[in-house]
């Protein structure tokens, strides 16, 4: 099988789109960061032992600080009305801090390009906003919660010979996020939806889902994801 040999370092030589906010003299950390096993409201066990419904609360994450700002299991949602978080996870739903989801200027869009090849936000990228941009007849959101959708990040595949199915990030779908402060941009690659950062081949019936592992590159003040030469 043909495999791309394009590495991030090589991609640095490639075209990158910049806007006027880019300042080539500013030293920013454009290394790939990884968040592992971010719990996205996993299922809870009912008193009778059966798997039950989750809390229906999002886990809010700051890409700028690379940490969870507000966990799903914190009942008080006061921190959600701030611009401290950029992106939120609950099951297969992902929100960004803007529009109907938060007070920030966050936006997002999915583009069909390998994570490593995305050297910057392409010129003319049409970012989407929660509550404004539609997902067919599903709730309007920047990132659609639809398997295989062009604005979604995942594909649902039924298990062969077992009930249920599994969620895998769709290959070659990179999420571009504008941070809540409106100044920075990130490219995000979801790596796993399962606890233990399971790669797709390791998922079996009973693998515990609703845990995000993702890689990202953040430019806090611009649209380029490659170091200036």
């Amino acid at each position, binding site marked *: *099988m*043909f*495999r*791309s040999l394009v590495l991030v370092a090589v991609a640095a030589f490639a075209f990158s789109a910049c806007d006027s906010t880019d300042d080539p003299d500013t030293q920013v950390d454009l290394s790939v960061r990884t968040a592992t096993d971010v719990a996205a409201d*996993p*299922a809870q*066990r009912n008193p009778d*032992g*059966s*798997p039950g*419904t989750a809390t*229906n609360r999002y886990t809010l994450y700051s890409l700028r600080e690379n940490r969870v700002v507000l966990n799903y299991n914190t009942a008080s949602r006061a921190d959600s009305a701030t611009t401290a978080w950029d992106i939120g996870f609950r*099951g297969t739903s992902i929100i960004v801090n803007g529009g109907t989801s938060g007070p920030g200027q966050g936006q997002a869009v999915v583009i*069909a390009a*390998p*994570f*490593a*090849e995305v050297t910057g936000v392409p010129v003319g990228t049409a970012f989407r906003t929660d509550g404004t941009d539609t997902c*067919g*007849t*599903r*709730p309007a959101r920047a990132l659609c919660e*639809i*398997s*295989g959708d*062009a604005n979604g990040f*995942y*594909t649902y*595949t039924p298990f*062969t*010979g077992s*009930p*249920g199915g599994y969620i*895998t*990030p*769709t*290959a*070659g*779908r990179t999420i571009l996020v504008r941070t809540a402060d409106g100044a920075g941009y990130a490219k995000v*690659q979801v*790596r796993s939806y399962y606890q233990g950062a399971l*790669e*797709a*081949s390791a998922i*079996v*019936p*009973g*693998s*515990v*889902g609703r845990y995000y592992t993702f*890689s990202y590159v953040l430019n806090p003040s611009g649209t380029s994801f490659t170091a200036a030469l």
Partner: protein
Amino acid sequence: MRALRPLLLAALSGTCALPALAQNPAAEADTTARRLGRVVVTATRTAELLEDVAVPTTVVDARDAEADGRLRLTDLLADVPGLTITSDFGAGVQVQGLDPAYTLILIDGEPVVGRDAGVLDLKRLAISGLDRVEIVRGPSSSLYGSDALAGVINLVTRTPTETGGRLRARTGTFGTTAFTAEGETAGTWRGGPLGLRLTLDRFATEGYDLDPDVFGPTTPAVGESTADLRASVALGERTEFTLGGRTTAGTVNQSYGFTDVLGATSPIDQTERRVDWSVHPELTHRFGRIGGAALSGTATAYVTGYRLDTDIVNRTTGQNTFDDRFDQSLLKGEARLSALWSATQRTLVGAGAFRDAIGGNRYGGDAPRQHTLFGFVQHDWEPSRLVALNLSARVDAPSAVGARVTPKVAVLLRPTDRYRLRLSVGSGFRAPDPRQLYLSFTNPAGGYVVYGATRLEEALARLDAEGRLGAVYVDPAGLGAIRPESSVALNAEVEAEPVRGLRLTLGGFRNAITDLIDVQPVAQLVGGGPVYSYLNVARVRTEGATFDVAATPVAGLSIGAGLQLLRTRDLDVVDAIRAGTVFSRDETGREARVTLADYTNLVGRARATGTLRTAYTAGGWTASVRGRLRSRTALRDLDGNGVATRDDEFVPATAIWDATLGRDLRVGRLARAARVQLGIDNAFGTTQPDLQPTLAGRRVYASLDLSF
């Protein structure tokens, strides 16, 4: 005799049933086959010489399959080049790269019911009592209607022609036992021939466990009992009555660990009990010459039923978590009239109706019933020895979906007696099955619901009224408007017999299928669980080439080999690959663009499959060796791109070798003939527990066969 035109042959066959009016195909085969070669009935619904049929047809003699140690229909079909046995929802058969739902399974020309998710479990069908199995490739909806899209497999029973009996017993690995008792009698009744035949068959296996670390055996314990009765009687010189009856009762016992979404596993015992039965009376009358044509008519009734009871018990709690019943019945009547106008022109017309009813826990209180009216016409015309044309068309008008017309044209060219060229263009269709129309299923554990297309609108309204409906993903205006899946197919084949005892066949096929029905999420429950229904979504193309060799270099030795190359693609995925939006991702997260060259096949299809069979008979000994080879096969999609590209998305290539050794014995007055057989299946013990759990390890068996 070879130069005789087949239709002329029909005209000359005198008091024997006209081939055009094959009311008793098996008897026809027995009387004609010995003189003129093999007669088949499935491709044109008339008895014809196999070599003169214009569509690709394979015939497997049940006695050959028995000599190879085959017991069930799955075993027999696995040896046929180009056919692949699948293992999802029971053992189905993949023809020309299409799923089991697209091949019609018949017994003496009438359909077997009881499909689960479109798959008829072929392990239910014993091969004892059969004369042969005919496999017609390419669509035959122009004669058979729905489901005959990839092909038709017709189990032709043996007609009672003599008085005698037979006992067979077998024992083998994994506690597998088989026992068959057959008895038949041929006599006269009011001066005409009368035949009766009864076959009793029992098959049982304990299953096997490829991975002792995992709770429960890999495959279930299975027991199947079959009784089959065939009777034929002449009612005067021109009229014949045949009666077929069959019933199978089976159990499947499985234990496995059920793992919930939080990873906790509990031991489950699952029991399935299934019963099917059918009654098939048929009356044929030769009217003689009327208005310039030799006329013959057939009236057929067919009644069949199927019932499946499934119980799932949690061994820890003792709780019965699932108690499901499924019923299906089919009631069908059909009349056919055949007119032989001359030695070169023949017309067959037929019409009838059937009622398909289903019931059970998953289908709501009222048992859904679908009525279908149908009619078909076929004309055979042989302008010359070189060319034979077969034109056919059928209209089906089901009550649940719109009427459908399916035409087909087939041409046979015979430049010389040694060469045959077969070319056919036809359309096939598959009406939405009962599950896709009527299902109303709530998963007790998974928190999802599934509704058939006709139930969806009402179900969504009800969920909405109950305050349980969240988002709706599909346009409500389009709900319930489900169309049949349909195909256009081309089949071509060149057959050559360059020297006596050597036959080469080269074939090619292409199927373009539209409106494939798939289960899709259409809405969301308030709690987040999905609502699924069935929608027309996909377009698929399957195309391939086949190459077959059959040789008998010396008396008693037969060698056969077949190869199929296959390409099956989802055309929407092809469009996406062309647009450059399909990527793969390896285990390290590295992504690459998928090219069309990377995309060979849908999941479950091998690019190349092959079969080999060598058998030698001499001095009372019979030996056979068979091989089934399969190239690496797309198994699953791990990176969400809908295409198998990663190595771990494939099953590696496999080669499975079986062998038998048989010896005829003299047993004096005890029996007329006796034979013992030793056999080994999967001689090299190839297994792939994770990827192919139905691939059992090495199995040996011994059998005894007595004829009286």
